């Protein structure tokens, strides 16, 4: 009996040992808008690589702040370049690993059962639109992009009273879904995953701000090789297919 127990213990220890040798946990801090696409990619990637992806989804501003404070992260996948510029300046990125791989477009969404007729951003000034949800316009990328766009059209000043700033683009989507705001500005990719909202207006790529999703390996990463491998995978064919399925524009 004792021998059997010992054998089991040794077998378990060996199994655990080989497991931890092979599989690395890769902490990925990713923009909220990437949530669904990355989760889908992870199911395949975890199986193929043997590594395990641990996600932290939030507004890129929150992620950047967390990394500044030393939160565990191996890879950051931001929805705007400015956040990575800041981290790069602080020397927190592994040199040579930064790459912009995706783009997106902005859309104006309304609740699926809404009767409002919005044909352009200008219609947001109408009296039937009382509240407009968007990411916090000084930090959350989706909000920064939305403000940039409305500013360019000269509408921002007219709309400030209606703006409900929220903590991430997904929170803006949720506010529209619940019907508590009449409209929201989110990414096309967010609108696509929700059945409770409909796209009232898609900002043409030529008119909207340049939206760019860069990723980079974090300098203090405990698994830099696994993180680099993941970064390469995210920029490869199989990942591209998933990103495109969710409505992202793959840059090459």
């Amino acid at each position, binding site marked *: 009996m004792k021998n059997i127990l010992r054998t089991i213990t040794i077998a378990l220890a060996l199994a655990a040992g080989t497991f931890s040798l092979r599989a690395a946990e890769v902490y990925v801090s990713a923009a909220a808008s990437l949530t669904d696409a990355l989760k889908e990619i992870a199911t395949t990637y975890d199986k193929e690589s043997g590594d395990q992806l641990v996600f932290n989804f939030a507004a890129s501003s929150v992620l950047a702040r967390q990394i500044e404070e030393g939160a565990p992260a191996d890879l950051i996948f931001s929805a705007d370049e400015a956040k990575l510029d800041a981290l790069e300046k602080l020397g927190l990125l592994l040199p040579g690993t930064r790459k912009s791989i995706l783009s997106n477009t902005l859309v104006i969404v309304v609740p699926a059962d809404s009767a409002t007729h919005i044909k352009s951003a200008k219609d947001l000034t109408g009296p039937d639109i009382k509240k407009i949800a968007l990411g916090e316009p000084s930090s959350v990328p989706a909000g920064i992009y939305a403000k940039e766009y409305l500013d360019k059209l000269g509408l921002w000043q007219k709309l400030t009273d209606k703006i409900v700033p929220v903590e991430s683009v997904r929170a803006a989507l949720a506010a529209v879904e619940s019907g*508590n705001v009449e409209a929201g500005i989110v990414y096309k990719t967010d609108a696509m995953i929700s059945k409770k909202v409909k796209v009232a207006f898609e900002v043409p790529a030529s008119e909207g701000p340049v939206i760019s999703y860069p990723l980079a390996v974090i300098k203090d990463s405990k698994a830099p090789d696994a993180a680099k491998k993941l970064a390469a995978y995210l920029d490869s064919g199989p990942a591209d297919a998933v990103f495109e399925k969710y409505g992202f524009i793959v840059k090459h």
Partner: protein
Amino acid sequence: MEHDNWQIIYFTLGVSILSTVLILPGGVLLAWLLARPRWIGKSLVETLVALPLVVPPVATGLILLELFGRRGILGSFLEKNLGIDIVFTWRAVVIALGVMSFPLLVRTSRVAFEEINPRLEEIARTLGAGETRIFFTLALPLAARGIVAGTMLAFARALGEFGATIMVAGNIPGKTSTIALAIYQYVQLSQDSAAFKLLGVSVLMAFAAVWMSEFILRRRPSRR
């Protein structure tokens, strides 16, 4: 201090005072009822009142969001009949603060009512006083210190509320942003110095409120 911060401080004081004033009559009356001998449903009411103390504030916020949202029972009623918008407005802040601080007011006041010698009420009754008269001329004055202390505690709780507020009212600068919400926002934006200023203010205000409530509770009752 920045202009924005003053606005945030005034707003926080304003909504905290308003929510405390609004819950005061109902809270005191309920405390008195709970201090009375058993009645049907008493323990259920007791538990319900205590819930916001123990349920996560964001969960309470979610319940409020479901109730007062445009598609919620109360929210849709108010919007259609009175044209009043709740969610993402200052009204939502007041509701969140009121609900979250209500248990503190009720529980502190209830203890004060329970400490009144029951003989006094019996005597008043034998002398022909009705329940309403007993409440206003006997119970209320005798429990006044406890009620004031409970009010201060409720006010202090309102000053610092975060979880329920952010769920129903969001964090809209100049409209629903309270000190607690603004501190969170400043930290997100790496504006730590502004956050620390508000932190100092909120500690001072909470300290004053709690200290006053302690002071009032400890003071010996004045002899009549």
